[in-house]
């Protein structure tokens, strides 16, 4: 989805049940805390009987605590007095003893408190009761704002907010020399892909995020380990960003943006995305004809049947990433250059196809199209 200006609603949720501190009507800034929760700690199993050289059945005799009791890191959990050298087992971390069995002491490490921030500038319009946190449906708040929205196809995880800076167009790779000290704390935008050296330079300059046209797949693992989020708008490889997408980002060069690079699970809605809030005073009638003023909720609506005039993005070569307008629908299968026959749509890509010299129209199977608005 790529929309120049709209009302956006986004949920910010706690990873596990906790406490929501924001309230309906509250205006929030990106760093504001909207709630906090305690993430359960992992289990540590200490083979106490073996460590102290006693039979398993003597475990309770040497343990100084019982199941359900809390301990602090360093506390002596069990002791075996001896004539020469008494031995002891110490708590490796704060936590609660959950079981003493089979010669082992099982410690649940104390939970870690996490604070969830608003991550964007807007107004809290609802408190979300929450269902299953693991299904992405935990407690949280709904934040509403007016802004531009650009969704990508891959994200490295994490989120960030900061000023956007265009550092390379769709016509060339991002190079290390494009990233200087002035990029510190900034979300960089590069219209196509980048080299490994550029990635290292970005890390060195402590950028706050990266928005790319695409990313070489063999860099994905390294990117996931970076301390900042990275989003690829078009996919993997060296696919340039669609002109319309890049132009939209360019109009917001220097503005504050929120980058959410989380990859939802297979059963979870949503996509990695960048949200650029537009102050109400600046809000103008849409600068591009296909921008609509509708509210974009957290969960995208089911795909509508395409109709002539719909704005679509092609997903496969030779038009991968290109944005165009549906001219005509063909529900009866039509031949493809491969020899297959499939239903699809005739799409006018105008001059949006990267490198296209003239307006271009092509038949694209429905399976290879997605709506962008």
């Amino acid at each position: 989805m790529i929309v120049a200006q709209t009302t956006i609603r986004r949920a910010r949720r706690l990873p596990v049940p906790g406490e929501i501190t924001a309230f309906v009507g509250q205006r929030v800034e990106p760093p504001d805390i909207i709630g906090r929760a305690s993430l359960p700690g992992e289990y540590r199993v200490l083979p106490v009987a073996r460590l102290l050289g006693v039979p398993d059945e003597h475990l309770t005799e040497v343990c100084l605590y019982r199941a359900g009791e809390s301990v602090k890191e360093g506390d002596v959990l069990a002791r075996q007095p001896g004539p020469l050298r008494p031995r002891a087992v110490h708590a490796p971390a704060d936590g609660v003893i959950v079981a003493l069995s089979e010669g082992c002491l099982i410690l649940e490490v104390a939970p870690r408190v996490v604070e969830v921030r608003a991550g964007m500038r807007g107004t809290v319009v609802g408190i979300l009761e929450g269902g299953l946190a693991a299904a992405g449906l935990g407690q949280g708040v709904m934040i509403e704002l007016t802004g531009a929205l650009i969704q990508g196809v891959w994200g490295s995880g994490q989120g960030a907010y900061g000023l956007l800076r265009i550092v390379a167009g769709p016509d060339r790779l991002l190079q290390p020399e494009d990233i200087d000290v002035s990029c510190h704390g900034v979300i960089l935008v590069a219209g196509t892909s980048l080299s490994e050296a550029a990635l290292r330079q970005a890390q060195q300059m402590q950028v706050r995020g990266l928005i790319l046209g695409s990313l070489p797949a063999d860099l994905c693992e390294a990117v996931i380990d970076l301390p900042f989020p990275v989003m690829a708008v078009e996919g993997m490889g060296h696919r340039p960003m669609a002109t319309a997408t890049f132009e939209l980002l360019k109009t917001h060069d220097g503005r504050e943006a929120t980058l959410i690079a989380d990859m939802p699970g297979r059963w979870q809605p949503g996509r990695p995305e960048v949200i650029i809030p537009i102050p109400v005073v600046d809000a103008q009638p849409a600068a591009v004809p296909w921008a609509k003023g509708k509210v974009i909720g957290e969960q995208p609506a089911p795909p509508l049947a395409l109709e002539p005039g719909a704005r679509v993005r092609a997903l496969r070569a030779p038009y991968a990433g290109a944005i165009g307008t549906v001219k005509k629908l063909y529900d009866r299968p039509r031949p493809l250059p491969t020899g297959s026959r499939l239903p699809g749509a005739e799409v006018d890509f105008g001059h949006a196809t990267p490198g296209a010299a003239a307006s271009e129209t092509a038949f694209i199977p429905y399976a290879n199209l997605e709506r962008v608005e």
Partner: protein
Amino acid sequence: MTDELSPISILAVDCGSVYTHAVLLDVVDGVYRMVARATAPTTAEPPVLNLAEGVRRAIMHIQTIIARPLLDEHGRLIVGGRHVTTGVDVCVLTASVADPLRLILAGLVEEFDLASARQAALTTYTRIEEVISLNDGRDMGGRIELLANRQADAVLVVGGTEGGANGAVQRLVKAALLAAQCRSGRIGPRPSPGLAEASSLPPTLLYAGNSALHAQLHDLINGHVPLVVTDNIRPRLDVERLQPLQSQLEALYEARQLAYVPGFDHISAWSTQPALPTARAFGRIVQFLSARQGGSRVLGVDVGSVATVVAFGDGGRLDLRVRADVGVGHSAARLLEAVSPADVARWLPFPLDPAEVHNFAWNKALYPATVPQEAREVALEQALAREAIRITLEGGGWETQDGGQSSLVRRPSSVIAAGSTLARAPRPGQTVLALLDAVQPVGIVRLLADVNGLMPALGAVGLIQPIAVVQVLEKGGLLSLGTAIVPSGRGVPGEPGLRLRLRHPAGGPLEVEVPYGELEVVPLPAGEEVPVALELASGLGLEGLEHGQVMVTGGAVGLIVDLRGRPLHLPDDPEACAAQAQAWLARVGG
């Protein structure tokens, strides 16, 4: 003729990760036929998040074809009641749309009970997350810690022969129980179906070890975790009993994974019997065909978006292998964790940087439902499919003959391709070449394709109406691609390897000489069965060759003579390798 009381019209629905297939079988002129089929995109994932929606779309398409209402005003399938003008008599369901079952295996010895457990796990959609064994270097604490901290859907405990010692297995059970009890404090109420969130459920303890522990198990577990007890997978060191555990794993896949797919509960209510995992249904048809064709060997390969299934039927006995982490859509990127991009690139008819293969696989995984628009991308998808089949076959632990030198699975009398990438390739020659490259069979091999996506449907139908399976297959349910003649042994490249003579139905006598190292195609239309006289060069042999003659059946491609040698040798130079692949593709009309 069909029995008066048996179901007449049968709707079979197969829900894959990308496509949902619906097939309507009905009695026409006294025999079962496929009267309509339809395919719709599967809608279990966002944004629709409702499996039923895609199933309804497929059924609505069938309604249009047969001009008979199948859905009521609420969008529910009309089942039963023998309505003359509406609905169907029976609906059966197969599915592979869910995530695989995540397993932790715990057993005693890698080579015995754990090897058997792995084999059983390979027969349905599972992913082994971790293995605990007596000699893995972990102590009791280490095992409990692993089990407590690792997310899994089930812990499978095996070990101990019948009548043998059971202390070590008992300790494994206790470790699993302790870990489960630790986690139970965190586990909330069971989520309602439709949330697709089975990961919050406590792992099921699945026990297939020494039966002496059965009575104690229930006391030990005491309702703390879901417990399933089945027969000992290794009752004696020299006896392996996989089937009971296989059935339990399939049942668990349905109960823990499929049941939580959004909308699955609606669809399963229409089905007259529990949903069958697609791999099992596919395997049943392979098994059926192998039993029916006079004790022949039938190999079925189904390359899907998430998983790859290889089913081998040998005279009615089935061997099934499922790689739930290897596919050409959702799992395309994961496939490249098992094979290298260069392994994939070697099958392409054009040179390509392995990094581009990596990019392609990732893009396909990001958009698994998309279809290739260019020949280049068709070739890339089929190259991924070749590797998916190859590693599923290689990791199979198949039965061998000749003292373990030759795997029977490489000597099938028929090979059947299933899954969109292979079975519905734009050109039949592409399917033929992909099968020959990936399976590398030897002998006289009939090649077929499940172009209608019928096999899982028929596998489920066979449980309630076996005659329907026979009659639909007899009416050409599978597309014949032709027959491949693949001698074993070694010849001299470029020298004559095989001379064949046949009376071609279109043009009289025909004699063809094929040099060793080459691939040759003789067009022979579907439905034609002709005797072919063969003369093999020294060093080459052919199983099934009697008095220098074999019977071959025609198909969409025809008679294929594959003298490229086994195993296939591909040039090391990428340019030469691509030229070679291009030449072979041109030979088969791809």
